[in-house]
């Protein structure tokens, strides 16, 4: 188990270098001069662009730029944005906010999704099950920004129950509505996944055996059905944590949350290499760790899976 975990952590090193190199190259290859574009239709006095290009090492070949960035990284310097802020400051601001949003979203989709999915699976074909299927189908087919704008309009503008946008320091309370919007699609998938898995397991041999042993229905469902049904759900949640951490551009835009998605998007449009790469590097690490946790959880959930040497 330890050996397995260690091996997986060591694998992060080549993944890290490969990902940063590729991303840096992609940002480098974006067409146009990012510094010239900062000035819009009016070029600054001659020389201004050259001075700034030199300041950001943009006048050097790609490979030199990349190595300067990596060397800086090992000295704890993530580079600076074109507005002159250290990228480490930007990360320290954006990641905690996105992390709070992702955790809330994950909690919502896990708790509500599994609960509703379980009930629907146990009452297959009944009204509750049918409604759950219709609602989840709706959530899957409607784009997130529609759900976002509608909830913002209803709860923020019309009912006034929530703030229309999230204020600067993004307290937990204000993030509830955005988290629900962010989680809506995944929530629908989890309902459907849990429901299918539960109804499959209900007719499995081990459930019949457990019932035949005389266990209470409650215990059969809790220990035998639910636990075994969670394996695919946990896989989904693990991958989704990564997606929630990095893919919230739309939700962040609607609720004016100053998080990771929007920051990376802006940095890409500005061609701001160090910002994009630093953020992506952290995201890659989050993804890898989330996947590792999922693999380890399998063993806990399903006794048939063991990680040997």
């Amino acid at each position: 188990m330890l050996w397995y975990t260690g091996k997986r952590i060591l694998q992060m090193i080549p993944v890290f270098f490969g990902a940063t190199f590729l991303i840096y190259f992609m940002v480098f290859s974006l067409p146009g001069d990012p510094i010239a574009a900062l000035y819009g239709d009016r070029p600054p006095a001659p020389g201004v662009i050259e001075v700034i290009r030199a300041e950001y090492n943009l006048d050097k070949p790609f490979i030199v730029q990349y190595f300067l960035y990596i060397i800086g990284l090992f000295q704890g310097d993530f580079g600076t944005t074109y507005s002159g802020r250290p990228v480490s400051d930007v990360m320290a601001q954006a990641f905690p906010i996105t992390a709070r949003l992702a955790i809330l979203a994950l909690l919502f989709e896990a708790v509500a999704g599994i609960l509703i999915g379980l009930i629907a699976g146990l009452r297959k074909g009944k009204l509750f099950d049918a409604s759950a299927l219709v609602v989840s189908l709706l959530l899957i087919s409607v784009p997130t920004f529609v759900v976002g704008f509608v909830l913002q309009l209803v709860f923020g503008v019309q009912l006034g129950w929530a703030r229309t946008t999230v204020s600067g320091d993004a307290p937990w309370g204000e993030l509830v509505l955005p988290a629900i919007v962010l989680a809506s699609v995944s929530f629908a998938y989890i309902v459907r996944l849990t429901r299918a898995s539960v109804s499959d397991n209900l007719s499995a041999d081990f459930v019949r055996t457990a019932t035949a042993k005389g266990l209470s229905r409650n215990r059969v469902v809790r220990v035998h059905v639910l636990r075994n049904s969670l394996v695919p759900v946990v896989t989904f949640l693990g991958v989704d944590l990564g997606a929630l951490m990095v893919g919230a551009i739309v939700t962040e835009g609607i609720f004016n949350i100053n998080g990771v998605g929007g920051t990376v998007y802006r940095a890409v449009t500005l061609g701001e290499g160090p910002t994009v790469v630093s953020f992506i590097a952290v995201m890659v690490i989050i993804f890898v760790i989330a996947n590792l946790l999922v693999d380890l959880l399998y063993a806990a959930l399903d006794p048939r899976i063991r990680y040997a040497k």
Partner: protein
Amino acid sequence: MKKSRMGLSVLALLSASALALTGCAPGEPAAEDESTGDASAIITTNGSEPQHSLIPTNTTESGGGKITTSIFAGLVSYTAEGEIENEVAESIESEDAKTWTVTLKDGWTFTNDEPVTSDSFIDAWNYGALYDNAQSASYFFDNIVGFSDVQNTKDDPSGAVDEEGNPVQVGDPLAETMSGLQVVDDTTFTVELSSPEADWPLRLGYTAYSPLPKAAFEDMEAFGENPIGNGPYMLDGEGAWVHEEKINLVTNPDYDGVRKPANGGLEIIFYATQDAAYADIEGGNLDVLDAVPDSALETFEDQFGDRAVNQPAAIFQAFNMPYYLPHWSGEEGKLRRAALSQAINREEITDVIFQGTRTPATDFTSPVIDGWTDKLEGAEVLDYNPEEAKKLWAEADAIAPYNETFSIAYNADGGHQAWVDAVTNSIANTLGITAEGKSYPTFAASLEDRANDKLTGGVRAGWQADYPSMYNFLAPLYQTGAGSNYEDYSSEEFDNLLKEGSQAASVEDATAKYQEAQEVLLKDLPSIPLWYSNVTGVSADTVDNVVFGWDSVPLYHQITKG
């Protein structure tokens, strides 16, 4: 050029154009009110994270501009109509429009109690112009004698040239200060321009001409985080600027200029999208919004009634046909440009695509600028006239047949696709040719092809005025060799009229010359005018006296609340 972030329906995107507004066109204040309001009330309004630290000479975009304009007072400031009123200046005078004598009022201080003197201005301007400081607004000082010495003017001895064939510049600047700026005493200084400019004082309300205290030059980076100004507002203590989030300004008790605030301060909240800001003003979290998102253009006037603003701004939109393309130079090009211009139904497009938030163009400036007119000789070329368009196009075809696909290039990150498609459709339908939009993924990508003469068709062009003058709409864009004259238009007649205008003895004479110069442009059409952008804004019923200035920014100091 003020650049601002323009929101698409979902994402805010960098674009070269901006939203702005006016005072000259008819437009009543959103709600006139006798009440003076609560003098300590804080007005909340929308903004965007400044591109750089808050140094006036490095602030040429609207996000930072609305902050530096509030915390600094220059020699003059602008009224809603774009006229200048003296702030720190007692007088700005010149005999020959070339050597200007500036006298300052006594008693002005920065918020650290340092007096505002001649040196405060001269040191700030020299800092802004110096090559090594790479300030984005350095070009504002390029007409002051000695500017070329503080820029790097020595050619690389190896003879290296850049992509455009200009010599690469190396070495240190020849001078640290501009010789055209001379201190006479603490409250008097003289400015010598390299060529006469009758309306030079009109420039001085622009934020780049703000004075700086001595503390700034000790550590400019730190100063930019917590600037010390002399304007109607000041930062609400250290760290009032929370990056990517907001900035809090409070009234400066020592300020005694023409923009004395009627409120207690400003909370400028940075939005990544205009949609989020609009939701906030609907939800009661925001008092004043100066940019309505595209998604609400159809409804905002009904929804906010007399609290909505929709009036022309100092923004001119057009598209240009490069002279280096076959079919687009000489007599043939001239005919084709005139045909294109008359093939576009500007009225319909501004109505349908922009819901009346654009005003069809009748010249090359803007209705908020003194001297704007719809009666220029030859302005009928800007009317929709399909018969005439077809006739001119056929005449051009007689010179050389055109069987290419016509295109207009635009940057996809700026929300331009809808109108480019409408314009190319209008052209295609009228002239019976194939026409389409050509999309570049980012503004940077389109700029690169444009600056390097690599376009394959027309290109979107736009201009937002830095200061309210016709000269600012004409010289940078169409003068031979000018910085933003990317398509290399060159007309001796136009250049001469422009020069005569800038040296004219009176503003009336200057205006006449600039109008004459535009009549040359109407014949040549180096740029095919489309429309003027309007400023669209709304205010909540918590505030009164919301008036938008000529530059599209609300006059924050006169807003009352409570």
